């Protein structure tokens, strides 16, 4: 009778999940550092298309200016007029001299307004600018 009573070695049927929390932590830290919160809503604009589009690497140093086809101007969700741009941007440049100004102008906006905007930026010493475009593929 005492033949087949040898105990079978129990196979562990569980997935080891002690390292799960570590992995999730790692992912969490990755996303926390990568996330840049969208600060402002802006205006609804149809950006022009361009092929020579480049990425802006320093995402935290970007300040946006919106200009829509009704030629409304918006900085940090405040509608303003052209003469107000210079003092605001000069203040921003004092706070962060590495600032890049991204002009998000509608493709049907008048170029004259963009030119005026560039003049104001020049006077505010905000010399690194970027014309926001959609990359054509």
């Amino acid at each position, binding site marked *: 009778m005492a033949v087949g009573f040898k105990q079978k070695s129990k196979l562990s049927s569980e997935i080891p999940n002690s390292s799960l929390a570590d992995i999730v932590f790692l992912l969490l830290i990755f996303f926390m550092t990568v996330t840049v919160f969208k600060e402002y809503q802006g205006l609804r604009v149809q950006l022009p298309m361009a092929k020579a589009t480049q990425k802006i690497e320093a995402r935290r140093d970007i300040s946006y200016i919106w200009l829509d086809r009704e030629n409304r101007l918006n900085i940090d969700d405040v509608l303003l007029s052209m003469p107000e741009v210079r003092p605001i941007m000069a203040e921003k440049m004092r706070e962060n001299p590495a600032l890049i100004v991204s002009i998000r102008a509608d493709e049907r906006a008048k170029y004259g307004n963009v030119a005026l905007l560039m003049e104001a930026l020049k*006077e505010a010493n905000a010399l690194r600018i970027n014309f926001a475009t959609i*990359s054509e593929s």
Partner: protein
Amino acid sequence: MNLKKHAKPNAEIPTSSLADIVFLLLIFFLVTTSMNPAKGIGMTLPPPGEQVEIRQENVLNIFVNPEGAILVAGEITDLRDVRQKVYEARMEFKRRRGEDDEIIVSLLAHTEAEYKHMIDVLDEIKQAEATKISIATPHF
């Protein structure tokens, strides 16, 4: 003799819910992260008040009129041919002045022109790998 055992206080922090909390945070950041980076055509403006005299022969003038018609070095040019023309002008300039010299491409768009037309032309100039691009200020 008092041999009664002391009740051992549990000195451990319960960590079983930690993973759940971290998961929750992870999902939050996953949802809020936008992975599409800011894109555009980068330019560096000249400092204010700096008016440099440039000899006309070192400049390639490009004009854009309110209808979006393009004038490259005095000739009406289709948008598709702008890149080729800029490239040829660059090469011609390099032949005359040496490899290290770059022609200045001056882009002047009319104030009534659509922004799109100006960006289209700027895009073509950028694609022709011109490095000295000047955006001229229109007169108001």
